[in-house]
Structure formats: C-alpha cells, structure tokens
C-alpha cells in the first residue's frame, strides 16, 4: 500500500516558467513532509520541508504548499532553471516514526 503517491512520473517545463510537482498521502498521522531532489548516481538531497501546523513554507525559488484536508502537498519552483532537472521525491513522517515514507518520484526536465 503506497501511503505517499506522486502520480506524475515526469514533467517537462520551459526555463523561466513555474514547475509544480504534486504529492498525495493517505496516512492522516503524517505530520511532517519533506521534498528531496536526486541527481543520477547521487543520493537524495534535502530541499525543503513543512510541518502540518503550516500551510506554506518558502525558501528562495522553492515553495511547498500543504492542504491537510485534501491530504495533498505541492512543490513550486519559480523560476525553473536547467539545473533543477532531477528526480524529486516527496516524503512524510509521523511523530513517533523513525523513518521517512517516500513517494515514487517525479522526474523534472527543465528545457531551454
């Protein structure tokens, strides 16, 4: 059972435009959400996170939005740059958990 879902396996966006990556979850106990970025042959690197007590968190070009009632979060990248081309993973955790539950990832390609 996939508790964290990223239904778009891939996304292509033109440089300078907005990239929107989506993530849905089913476990209502999740209270903290993270986005990781992964380049080929490298480990995932932490990008941005959000606690369930907030609905938005912003860090430079990256903003994460959380809609708890819909169990949905999204990552916005504005403006998108070619170096943003990577696989993006959404992850979630609960207060008592010692692990992250990851989605299957979305491959973002930013074209010139």
């Amino acid at each position, binding site marked *: 059972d996939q508790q*964290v879902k*990223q239904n778009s396996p891939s996304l292509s966006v033109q440089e300078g435009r907005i990239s929107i990556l989506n993530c849905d979850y089913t476990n209502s106990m999740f209270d*903290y959400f*993270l986005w*990781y970025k992964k380049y080929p*042959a*490298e*480990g*995932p*690197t*932490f990008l941005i*996170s959000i606690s369930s007590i907030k609905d938005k968190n912003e860090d430079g070009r990256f903003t994460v939005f959380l809609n708890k009632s819909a169990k949905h979060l999204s990552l916005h990248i504005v403006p998108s740059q070619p170096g943003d081309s990577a696989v993006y*993973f959404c*992850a979630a*955790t609960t207060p008592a*958990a*010692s*692990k*992250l*539950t*990851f*989605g*299957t*990832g979305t491959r973002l390609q930013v074209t010139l």
Partner: protein
Amino acid sequence: GAGVSQTPSNKVTEKGKYVELRCDPISGHTALYWYRQSLGQGPEFLIYFQGTGAADDSGLPNDRFFAVRPEGSVSTLKIQRTERGDSAVYLCASSPTGSNYGYTFGSGTRLTVV
C-alpha cells in the same frame, strides 16, 4: 568526513552469494539509516540505528538481511543468499540526532544480483 560515504559504489554478485555493504556516516552523527531504492520506486526504509543499537529494524524484508554498527560509527549491511530481487540501490543516511528531519544521504551502493 565531509559527507556520508558508501562502499563499494557498485557490486555485482551471483545469486546465492553473501555481500556486505559499508556506510561511513558523517562524524559525530549518532543516527544512521539504511534505505533501499528499487528501479522506479522511492527509497524504502530498512533499518535505523541510534548509536550502536538498532532502534527500528522493521523494514528489513526477511532474515537474510542483517545490519550492524558495533562502535556507533561505521555500519555494515549484510545480505545472505542473495536473490535477483535484492538488486537495488542501497542508500545510507545519517543525522546528528534521531530526528527524521534533514538526513544526509550517501550516493548509494548499486547491487546487481545475476
């Protein structure tokens, strides 16, 4: 070291053989995690160490998998009687405390069982 180091970066083994995968966490990080990423999937939790002890091993798929961290630093993931389905990238991560927030991952070991 500056980051989490995993060796080897690639390992090809025959079905039925034993393999060991090594992880050197960031110095001073007490928490260490192993994840497995199969093709087309996200990382899946295997085991979490706090210091020398395995605080949560609920993700280990079966008793062919075992991990140790005898001195609270380097960890070794051991897989006995490897099967083709064990082929995946094995990722190690560490963090300063037991918090799930802001892990640092290594580059992984790509294991191929032929």
